[in-house]
């Protein structure tokens, strides 16, 4: 199935968990936050949350700003 990750279409296996996606994208252990379809997925639920087709996943971090 396809999902949108930070606006880009990517292909992932069916019923991939959020943790698996983040691992694949090299984000495990990084300071990030995730929302899917504009709902925040708390870190404690990454392991159990399964992605669905056409999910819009946003992964954000802190950068320099005023």
């Amino acid at each position, binding site marked *: 199935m396809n999902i949108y990750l930070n606006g880009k279409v990517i292909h992932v296996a069916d019923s991939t968990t959020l943790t698996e996606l983040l691992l694949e994208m090299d984000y495990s252990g990084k300071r990030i936050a995730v929302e899917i379809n504009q709902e925040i997925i708390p*870190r404690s639920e990454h392991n159990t949350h399964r992605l669905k087709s056409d999910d819009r996943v946003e992964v*954000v971090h802190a950068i320099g700003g005023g």
Partner: protein
Amino acid sequence: MSTVAAETKKTEQANQVQDKLIIAGKSYGSRLLVGTGKYKDMAQTQKAIEASGAEIVTVAIRRTNIGQNPDEPNLLDVISPEDYTLLPNTAGCYTADDAVRTCRLARELLDGHDLVKLEVLGDEKTLFPDVIQTLQAAETLIKDGFKVMVYTNDDPLVAKQLEEMGCVAVMPLAAPIGSGLGIRNPHNIRFILEDANVPILVDAGVGTASDAAIAMELGCDGILMNTAIAAARDPVLMASAMKKGVAAGREAFLAGRMQARRYASASSPIEGTFTS
């Protein structure tokens, strides 16, 4: 150390102990808050923030770059939440909804941290705030348990309204963001200060250390700045200058300036002169 020097040091320490900036119940020794944008690299960011003496430091929340530079240093490794009070901002948001969404992501990112800098912009050229969207976002965020420090224009009525809604600090601009034009309307800042029951911080517009001192002499509780430091020829040195400008302005405010007068007033006694 001489007795006088020791006394001076003691007085300075006593002043520092007593004169704290209190925001949302937490007290801070520094009245200078700084941003982390526009620096050359992470090393310069770190050095400038250290030199500024700031304890509250703003950060922006943005999408990660998928697959790019996975080993790039993370800002939070340099400006650690253990060492600084992080103040995530909503810079770049033009609607209340986007600002609220950004704050919620920031809270998740920073493990429940609920102090945020709200700014909802209305115009790209001036970066002036959209006050209506700002008020809406503030209301939602406060209901949602956030402690909101809010960027606004220098309108005293709006500043009061934001205070009454429950914002923990109100931060009027002194001039457009990143302009370095200094304190353009000290009269409005004074109106806001006269009526305030929460800390009032100048956010945006300061260009150099004397601007910072002027804002503090007006009685502002603190100053938030970024470009004035980051865009200086030597940002680390300017950070140190700003620290002193803010501290000097604060002490001058507390000391209470002399009354200005049109004519001279001799500093040495007239009595006892022996020349003709």
